[in-house]
C-alpha cells in the first residue's frame, strides 16, 4: 500500500529576466493506493503528476508531507528550518539522500520504475540489462539468466537477446524496460508516461501486454499519463490532476469489467466527463481546470 500524506513540492526558479520565482509543482496531495490495482495519474502537462510520481519512487524529496510504502517512509522531507538544514547537510555530506549505500546493492523499497524514454542501459545487451537489474536485487548468479529469460519470453524478446537497445525499435525498447521491471518481481511498478513515445498501434499492443502481465503477476501499477483513452482502458482508478498548482482535481473509479473494449459507451461517457474538467487557455497557452 502506498500512502501519500499532504505531499507538496516547491521549486525556486530563475526567470529569463533574472528574477527569482517560486513554483508550486505539487500542492498538498494525499492519496492512498491499494495493492494490486492499476492507478492512473492523469492531467495536462505541467500539472505536477510526474513530479509526484518521482516523489512516490523516492527520486525527489517532498518539500512537505511524506510518502509511506507499507508503512516505511520513502524519503524524509527537505529541511525547513536552519537547524534542520545543518543536520541534513551533515547527514548527507558524502552520499546524497537518494543513494542506497556505498558498497552494498540493496533497494530501499520493493518498487521498479519505467520511464518515458525507457532508460534501459545502451551499453548492455537486452539480456545483460535484465540480468543487471536482477544482480542489483541480490539474485544469485546462477538463477539470473534463467529468470531473465522467463521475463524476456513473456514480452517476446527472446530473439534479440544479444542485441543492444540502439538496435531495437521504440516499442521493443519499452518491452525490454517492462521485462526488466517485472523480472525483479516488485510489488509496485511506477510508470512515467510509458507508452507516450511509441506509435498508436504499438501503444495499444503494449497496453494489452501490460494488462496480461499485470493479470499474471498481480503487481500494483501507478501510471502517469496524459492520454485519457489509455487511462480509461487500463486503470481501476483515475486520479485527475489539475495544473497551477498541481493538485488532485477529481478521482474516478473505473468499474468496467476487463477485458474492456476501447469503444465501450461507459468509458466514452467517463472520457467526456474527464475532458470537460479542463479548458485550454490559448492566450496563456496552458490548461486550466473548471
Amino acid at each position, binding site marked *: 500500500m502506498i500512502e501519500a500524506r499532504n505531499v507538496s513540492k516547491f521549486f525556486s526558479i530563475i526567470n529569463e529576466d533574472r528574477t527569482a520565482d517560486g513554483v508550486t509543482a505539487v500542492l498538498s496531495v494525499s492519496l492512498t493506493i491499494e495493492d494490486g490495482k492499476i492507478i492512473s495519474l492523469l492531467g495536462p502537462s505541467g500539472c505536477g503528476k510526474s513530479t509526484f510520481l*518521482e516523489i512516490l*519512487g*523516492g*527520486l525527489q524529496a517532498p518539500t512537505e508531507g511524506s510518502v509511506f510504502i507499507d508503512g516505511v517512509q520513502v524519503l524524509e522531507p527537505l529541511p525547513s528550518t536552519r537547524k534542520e538544514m545543518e543536520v541534513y547537510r551533515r547527514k548527507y*555530506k*558524502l*552520499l546524497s539522500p*537518494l*543513494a*542506497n*549505500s*556505498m*558498497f*552494498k*546493492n*540493496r*533497494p*530501499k523499497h520493493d*518498487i*521498479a*520504475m519505467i*520511464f518515458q*524514454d525507457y*532508460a*534501459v*542501459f*545502451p*551499453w*548492455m545487451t537486452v539480456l545483460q540489462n535484465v540480468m*543487471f*537489474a536482477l544482480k*542489483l*536485487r*541480490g539474485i544469485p548468479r546462477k538463477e539470473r539468466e534463467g529468470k531473465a529469460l522467463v521475463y524476456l519470453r513473456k514480452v517476446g524478446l527472446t530473439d534479440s537477446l544479444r542485441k*543492444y*537497445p*540502439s*538496435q531495437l525499435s521504440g516499442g521493443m525498447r519499452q518491452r525490454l524496460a517492462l521485462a526488466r521491471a517485472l523480472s*525483479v518481481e516488485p510489488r509496485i511498478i511506477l510508470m512515467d508516461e510509458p507508452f507516450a513515445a511509441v506509435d498508436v498501434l504499438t501503444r495499444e499492443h503494449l497496453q494489452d501486454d501490460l494488462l496480461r502481465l499485470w493479470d499474471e503477476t498481480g503487481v500494483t501499477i501507478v501510471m502517469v499519463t496524459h492520454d485519457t483513452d489509455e487511462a480509461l482502458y487500463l486503470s481501476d482508478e483515475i486520479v485527475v490532476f489539475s495544473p497551477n498548482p498541481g493538485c488532485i482535481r477529481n478521482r474516478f473509479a473505473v468499474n468496467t469489467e476487463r477485458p474492456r473494449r476501447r469503444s465501450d459507451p461507459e468509458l466514452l461517457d467517463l472520457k467526456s466527463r474527464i475532458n470537460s474538467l479542463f479548458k485550454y487557455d490559448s492566450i496563456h497557452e496552458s490548461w486550466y481546470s473548471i
Partner: protein
Amino acid sequence: MSKSINSMSKLKSVLRLIFREIGYFFKGAAGNLFTWEFITILIPLLALWELLPRLGVVNDRLVPPLSEVAVTFWVMVTQRGFLSDIGNSMVKFFLGLGLAIIAAIPIGLLMGWNISIRKRVLPLFQMLSPIPPPAWVPITIILFGVGLPMQTFLIFLAAFYPILFNTYQAVKDTDPRYLASARIFGASELTLILRVYFWHSIGAIIMSVKTGIAMGLVMLVIAEMYGGRTGIGYILNEAKDYFRISQMVVCMATLGMIGWFLIEVLKFVEIKLAVWKVGR
C-alpha cells in the same frame, strides 16, 4: 591426459582468437590509411620528394630525397641500434601514459560522481593544469635528476590533465535517468560508478586518452631533448648538432608512425569496448 589435451586445445583456440583479432586490427588500421583514393595522392607526393632533390630543383643537402632517408633508416637500425632507442622511448612513454590513465580516470570518476569530493579536489587541478608541461622541465630535472623518472613524470604530467578533465566532465554529465533507474533497482554507489557512470562516459574517456597520447608524445620529445642520452628525442637533437638532416627526418617519421599506430590501437579498443555505439 585428456585434461591436458583439453587445455592445450583451449590454449590453441585462445591463441587463434588473439591472432585473428590482431589480423583484424592491422587490416582495419591499414585500411583506414591506404585507400585507393589516398594512394593516388600519396604516390605522386613520394615521387616528388624523391625527384625534386635529385633533379636539383631544391637543394639536396637541405632536403634529402626519400631513398636517402630510407638508407639512413636502415643504417641507423643496423649500426646505431635505433630500434633499442625506439624501445627506450616507448618504455618511458607507456610508463608515463599508463600512470596518467591509472591516476586520472579514477580521480575523474570520483570528481564527477560526488560534488563534495569535486569541491575539495577540482580547484587544485584547475590551478595546476594551466602550467604548460614544458615549464615543469627545469624543476623536475632538479628534483628527479636526468633520467627515466624525470622523463616519465613529464609524460605523465602532459597526459594527466586532458584525461582527468574530459573524464570528469563526461561523468558529471551522466544522464540522471540512468542513475535513477539503477538506484531504484537498488544499485550501490560503487556499482553506479563502475557500471553506469564509467560506461556512460566511455566514449569521452577513450577520446581523452587519444588527446593524452598526443600530449604525451610532445612531452616525450621535449623530455628527451632536455635530459637523457637515449631515445628518439635525443637522437633528433643530436642530429641537429651534426647537421644530419636525413636522421632528423627518420626520427620525425618514426614519431609520426608511433602516434598514428597508437591512435589506431585506441580506435580498435573503442570498437571493442563501445560496440553499442557503433550501430548508431
